[in-house]
């Protein structure tokens, strides 16, 4: 067990920090400290291109595919330096962290050549098509249909996805759809890669409680994708999708934590500024938040140091509950620090600054990607071996 970094790693840290600071104090200074994912979309696309151009976008990938073969320690270091430099939340994260690793793991050689360069260079942005109006917590209840059209050698997709984050600015979507007529649950699902810009796909933004529209409804009406864009085999989509959820618990958690760090720092600064930092109760809550964030980091390092990635240990299953609950409390703390000043904002638009926005947006954290209640079932059943929930018959 060792937490310190080697001299080589420290040299890597210096290189990464220099590059990031040069960007955040130069060409991309306007993006410094930006959280959320919807503001300044065009500039953020340029930032993704810059990361790709200088090979900082997917450092953990093989160099053959635009990465740096970075070690675990180096990936940790980069995530830390990214946060320290105040670089913005990454709109390419679903390609970089989900679609890319899925293609690397399950994709054919042809698919790798076709899709990985676009992701690594920041030119092609991806979004995720899992949830449906009737397949939220019960994700396996997917009803969107896919059938192979032999005449054109294309998959044809009909149905509706919902909560498609950032679909309005993305280029491609990965979709889980039902390809076996009459199949139920996790059987008979197929994992497809589809271009978003086509007549068969309509995207409608959903306005959220914070006034922004990061999520969308995505309608598929005879939407098409070439048969070569099937990942794995027809009917094996659930296995691919679940493998992808494992990536979600990987290094990406450290990237997410860097945003949390910035949010907590903003709360600390606000508390000092308005004097609430002297309130013993606020101090206790800030200290608790600080402890929680640090433990998130070391929890992630434990997960990443766990050598058998094929069989993650049960502790990894607790991470979603941990961070989501932590951030929801952080939002409440932010408002208690700000007081009523947090409830008004400049301008006529219903658009609140970072901390009140955190308060609102964090209510989604304990819902998406498996609600806290579903997560507790998962922990209890898979990690603790308790009896599974009985299946209903409706």
């Amino acid at each position, binding site marked *: 067990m060792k937490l310190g970094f080697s001299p080589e790693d420290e040299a890597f840290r210096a290189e990464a920090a220099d590059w990031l600071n040069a960007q955040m104090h130069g060409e991309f200074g306007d993006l410094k400290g930006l959280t959320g994912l919807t503001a300044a979309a065009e500039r953020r696309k340029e930032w993704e291109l810059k990361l790709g151009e200088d090979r900082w976008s997917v450092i953990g990938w093989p160099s053959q595919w635009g990465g740096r073969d970075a070690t675990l320690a180096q990936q940790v270091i980069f995530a830390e330096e990214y946060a320290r430099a105040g670089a913005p939340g990454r709109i390419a994260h679903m390609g970089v962290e989900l679609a890319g690793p899925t293609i690397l793991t399950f994709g054919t050689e042809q698919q790798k050549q076709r899709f990985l360069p676009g992701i690594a260079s920041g030119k092609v942005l991806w979004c995720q098509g899992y949830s449906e109006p009737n397949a939220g917590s019960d994700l396996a209840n997917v009803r969107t249909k896919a059938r192979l059209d032999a005449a054109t050698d294309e998959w044809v997709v009909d149905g509706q996805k919902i909560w498609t984050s950032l679909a309005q600015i993305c280029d491609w979507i990965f979709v889980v759809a039902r390809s076996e007529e009459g199949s139920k649950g996790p059987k008979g699902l197929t994992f497809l890669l589809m271009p978003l810009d086509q007549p068969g796909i309509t995207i409608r933004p959903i306005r959220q409680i914070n006034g922004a529209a990061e999520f969308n409804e995505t309608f598929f009406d005879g939407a098409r994708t070439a048969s070569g864009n099937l990942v794995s085999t027809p009917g094996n989509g659930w296995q691919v999708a679940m493998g992808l959820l494992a990536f979600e618990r990987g290094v990406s958690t450290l990237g997410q934590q860097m945003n949390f760090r910035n949010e907590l720092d903003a709360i600390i600064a606000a508390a000092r500024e308005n004097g609430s930092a002297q309130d013993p109760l606020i101090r206790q809550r800030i200290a608790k938040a600080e402890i929680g964030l640090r433990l998130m980091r070391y929890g992630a390092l434990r997960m990443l140091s766990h050598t058998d990635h094929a069989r993650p240990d049960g*502790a990894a299953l607790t991470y979603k509950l941990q961070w989501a609950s932590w951030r929801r409390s952080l939002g409440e703390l932010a408002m208690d620090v700000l007081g009523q000043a947090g409830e008004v904002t400049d301008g006529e638009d219903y658009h609140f600054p970072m901390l009140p926005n955190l308060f609102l947006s964090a209510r989604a954290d304990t819902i998406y990607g498996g609600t806290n209640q579903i997560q*507790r079932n998962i922990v209890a059943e898979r990690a603790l071996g308790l009896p599974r929930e009985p299946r209903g018959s409706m």
Partner: protein
Amino acid sequence: MNFAFTDEQAMIAETAKAFFDENATSERTRAAMDKDGVDRALWHSFCQELGLAGIALPEAHGGSGLGLVEFAILAEAAGAQVAALPMLGSLAMTAHGLARGGSEAQKAVWLPKLASGEAIGATGLAAKVTASGDRLSGTVDFVAHGASADVFLIATDSAAWLVERGAAGLIVAACTTLDQTRPFARLTLTDTPAEPLSDAAAALRAAQEGGWICVAAEALGGAQATLDRTVGYAQERIQFGRQIGSFQAYKHRLADMMVEIEQARSAVYWAACAVDEGSDEAPIALHSAKSFAADTYFRCAGDMIQLHGGIGFTWEHDAHLFFKRAKAIQSMLGTSAWHRERIAQLIGLGDAA
């Protein structure tokens, strides 16, 4: 950077767990609770046969020269059984304090004896004593396993001494204590001969660090044990024609326990590593580990009673051993609120109003 046990550490963990699971049984612990809270036969075999008591002590004085990570592994395993042993007083605080701040002569005399179990040490911090030459007068409260000790490390914020049992003017009064596996004693000193330590500040720091890591690791082991035992009960107890562990109200509470425990695990080993590596993060890590692990243990032990129903409230069931140890850990060596206040200062919140 690799935040996982080395093969050697994994082996120590396995050995320690097997040893305490087999030997630190409820019967033996309860027998010790009826006396002074020390299972002497168990302490003897831990120190002599297992030979791990000096794991974090210098090799020159009978130790193995390893660090607090390895020590935490032992404390975690002992804590999982609420073993009635002077791990905290004798090793974590007295021996580690002496090793860092004692004179060469003090180390040569006491460290081998403490590591071999031949002598038991106890530490009293925040002593209300005054020194006059090499004599101490005053009182020291809440000395864990004090009535069993052969030697005392007594410290104020600025000075530290060794006092031997039987020293003139020393009265050791055993207290009937909530946690009978680690009863407190009250020391009264009247012109009692005391040997000052050569580096009091270093001794105090080492005793505190050792103590915090020890109780945090015990709390981790204890919390995990409450979860494991309650999961076992959830699977065997049938009500309404179902295993009670099939009810969401029940299993969600167990899931929440696990979420806290896994964070406590990160906290304990982060802190132990940070101290061993001399990291700048050591202070914040120690305060995090002590407060978080203690609160986790208390919550889990309380949940264990609730989730066992009536049987969990009986003297016969072990739930109360965990519950009482958890409470004692929460209040000793700085409350959770005190540790969090230290963190508030460390992260730049300035002073409280």
